[in-house]
């Protein structure tokens, strides 16, 4: 029954190396596939990592215990990990919501800066006596709007002239970074603290600082998780989300159904920018407590793209993926403290991340050894395509109106 799909580029069946490895898209997998494979991939990563640690002369058991202790064992460790995960969830959502519609917002980094600039501006401008709820509310709203407007600078040309949003959003990151640096390092502005010798931002008043929950973890985590749930709900349960998912899957089908693709590009990019802006609010209010370019420009926006890709653009998936990434990051510094070289630490972090990410491929694709039929092809025949058209030949035919035969029988 899958044969109907093989002639479609959308659901392509590709022949693997020398035609012996067969890769077929799964469509959907059971719980074993969806959860079992990532866990198995984690174990493979730890096993490979152990080899590296042994080769470097370190004790893998000690190293792994330290990693676990530092990131996931006990309230202090969890607070540290979740504090780091907070902005990642938000920028991950920013990327995910755009990716759902196959619009590529690479500009969460810059939208985060702009959100931070706007929010800290509000925090410094409003009277110190403003009640915290109003103050933080105003900062969140203004920060989100600022992020949305910044994304809008890329969204409008995209909707009007189909300007490539990958380029425009990426370039706007540098503009935003320069703007933020200028406000603190390049001039005497409202944001800069004139008292400090080393240039830095004015400290926000207490009412503009997100209260801590435990250790470094602040209420931004609640904002982030709530955002994830809301975005998931919007996409999965509303008629608007239906439209976005349709456009993401097939623009021609969306147009056919009478949906306005341009309008949704504007809406989705603005929403994406707003989420990145909120990440900026959360960082400036909960972590740096003033506009501190050095502490804000830590590639949180770019990491959000990775989060979204690993979470397959699922808003709820963004949360565990962010926590996982944050855990790897927090455990890194502790590993160095027990004397493991920084290079080995980075290698280990990369290995775990890479393996778990690569495992995703097996969640969405079924990989098996090709059945025996290929063995029947004579050994001196390197191209076993004469009896069975390969993907390439099917596509070649599909492009020629005369040869519809494979499609005709593939019902």
């Amino acid at each position, binding site marked *: 029954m899958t044969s109907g799909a093989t002639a*479609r580029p959308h*659901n392509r069946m590709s022949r693997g190396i020398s035609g012996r490895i067969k890769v077929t898209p799964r469509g959907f997998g059971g719980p074993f596939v969806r959860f079992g494979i990532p866990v198995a991939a984690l174990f493979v990563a730890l096993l490979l990592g152990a080899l590296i640690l042994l080769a470097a002369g370190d004790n893998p058991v000690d190293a792994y215990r330290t990693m676990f202790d530092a990131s996931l064992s006990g309230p202090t460790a969890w607070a540290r990990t979740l504090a780091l995960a907070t902005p990642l969830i938000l920028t991950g959502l920013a990327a995910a919501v755009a990716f759902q519609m196959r619009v590529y917002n690479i500009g969460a980094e810059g939208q985060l800066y702009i959100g931070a600039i706007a929010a800290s501006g509000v925090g410094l401008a409003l009277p110190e006596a403003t009640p915290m709820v109003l103050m933080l509310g105003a900062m969140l709203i203004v920060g989100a709007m600022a992020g949305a407007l910044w994304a809008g600078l890329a969204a409008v040309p995209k909707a009007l002239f189909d300007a490539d949003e990958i380029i425009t959003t990426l370039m706007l990151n540098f503009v935003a970074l320069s703007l933020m640096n200028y406000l603190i390092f390049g001039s005497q502005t409202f944001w800069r603290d004139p008292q400090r010798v080393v240039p830095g931002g004015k400290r926000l008043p207490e009412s503009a600082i997100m209260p801590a929950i435990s250790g470094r973890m602040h209420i931004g985590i609640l904002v982030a998780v709530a955002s994830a749930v809301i975005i998931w709900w919007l996409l999965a349960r509303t008629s608007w989300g239906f*439209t976005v998912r349709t456009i993401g899957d097939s623009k021609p089908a969306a147009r*056919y159904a*009478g949906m306005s693709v341009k309008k949704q590009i504007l809406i989705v990019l603005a929403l994406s920018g707003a989420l990145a802006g909120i990440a900026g609010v959360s960082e400036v209010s909960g972590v740096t407590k003033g506009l501190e370019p050095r502490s804000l420009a830590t590639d949180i926006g770019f990491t959000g793209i990775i989060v979204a890709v690993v979470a397959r653009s699922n808003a709820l998936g963004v949360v565990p993926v962010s926590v996982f990434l944050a855990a790897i990051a927090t455990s890194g510094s502790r590993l160095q403290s027990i004397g493991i070289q920084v290079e080995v630490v980075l290698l280990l972090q990369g290995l775990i991340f890479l393996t778990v990410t690569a495992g995703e491929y097996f969640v969405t694709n079924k990989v098996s050894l090709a059945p025996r039929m290929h063995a029947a092809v004579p050994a001196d025949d390197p191209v076993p395509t004469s009896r069975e058209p390969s993907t390439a030949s099917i596509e070649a035919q599909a492009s020629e109106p*005369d040869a519809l035969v494979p499609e005709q029988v593939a019902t």
Partner: protein
Amino acid sequence: MNASTRLEVRDLTKSFYGVPAIDSVDFDLVGGEIHGLLGENGAGKSTLCSVLSGLYRPDSGSVTLNGEPVQFRSPQDAARRGIGMVYQHFRLVDSFTVAQNMVLGLSKDQRPGSFRQIGARVHDLAEEYGLHVDPSASIWQLSVGEQQRVEILKQLFRGAEILILDEPTAVLAPQEADHLFDAVSTMVEKGHAVVLVSHKMAETIDYTDRITVLSRGRVAGRAVTAETSASEIAAMMFEEAGAAKRAPVASGTAVGEPALVLSDVRVRGDNGLVAVDDASLTVHRGQVVGVAGVAGNGQRELQEAIAGLRPLDRGKVRVCGRDCTSLNPKGRSRAGLAYVPEDRLGTGLAPGLTLEHNMVLKSHDRAPHSRWGLLSRSAISETTAKLENAFDVRGNRSGMQVSLMSGGNLQKAILARELTAEHEVLLAAAPTRGLDIAAAEAVRTHIVNERDAGRAVLLFSEDLDEVIHMSDVVLVMYEGRIVGSFGRDEVDIEEIGLLMTGSATSSETIAAPEVEPVAAR
């Protein structure tokens, strides 16, 4: 014509999934001739060319090249032996120069020196054959006509003695086509042999020396061009369509008022050129109007213009008396137009989403499927189950992406969605293409039921047999114009064939929508 046989094909058969695309085909090509290869869509022309150019290997039969039996292992293998194919869709790298494209894919020792030398050689070839093009230009800078010249030069550059041109004029303006045939004439004068795959009668008659006609994978006829006529060739091409034993479906009894009216419609294609011009037609209630034509003669553009997916340059579209010209697809659907598009997966259905999602694609934002912007999943499931039952859509599993279902079930799903929505006009494009016999029959039954329920049906199909079988009025499209109209009793396969290939104009072209096409009763 000299008698040196270049290529001799005997008893060639090639099947896909057990269905023969070409069946026991014999074909000869001699040096210095232009050999026309004709046939309807799906007649096997491309398959035969693909075998000759090494892309496919035949299941059985023999190919003899210059007296020597050959079996090509790959297109490169065929190219080394002097067979070059120019595809309709060019195989060029846009960002490379002409000279770079010449040697693309050649190994180092096959490459004759520096790009300057290559450029000089291209220049010489261009002079020799009259295929002028700047060797240092990048492909993206060139017009379609120039790109085609590059493709031909590439084959000549690689030493092709036999050139296969797959519908070369489909992408060209008339004067470019003349230019192309000048170059082709020069080639055959110098002893090359050319296979010209074509749908167009005029160029076949004007330029070929001999012709071979394929029909449903078999050779339906051969002729020396000078000794035959357009009507004889058309008879060979479409003979079988008329010979089919299926009786036409009983014609509807009552033909009602006009439900879909196009007047003087002009539409541009993706490339900005006029794809449909002066198209006027009327479909009455209780009537199936079928549009016959070779693919690529503006049918897709016309369908999209009717559905609201393509803006009109000029003209009007009226559905049930209402002017829909400025309405978007949704507006037209509300005005009473149901549309089964040619492209099932990708346009008619969002391939990566579920059947449930696709069944409410157009009605997701209305009750009962959503209230205040919130989707009702139970209502959506209910609708899906109802449609699955009513239209016998099988193979769905919960959560499965719809593209994993078979073509027949996909088409039934689209029909289910479109025909249960309120509508008065059905626009169906290639509704049975690629379906097995049972599924195709089911689809045809639905279309006939529509007509019998007093709705208007406009049917586009490349299967001439189907158009004739289903339609009360047959229209013929050629190069963006409606060139002929036949009532059920006046259907003349040969005449339709001639019109489809552009070799005749109908005695009764539809002039205006007011002039009612003669409807059979």
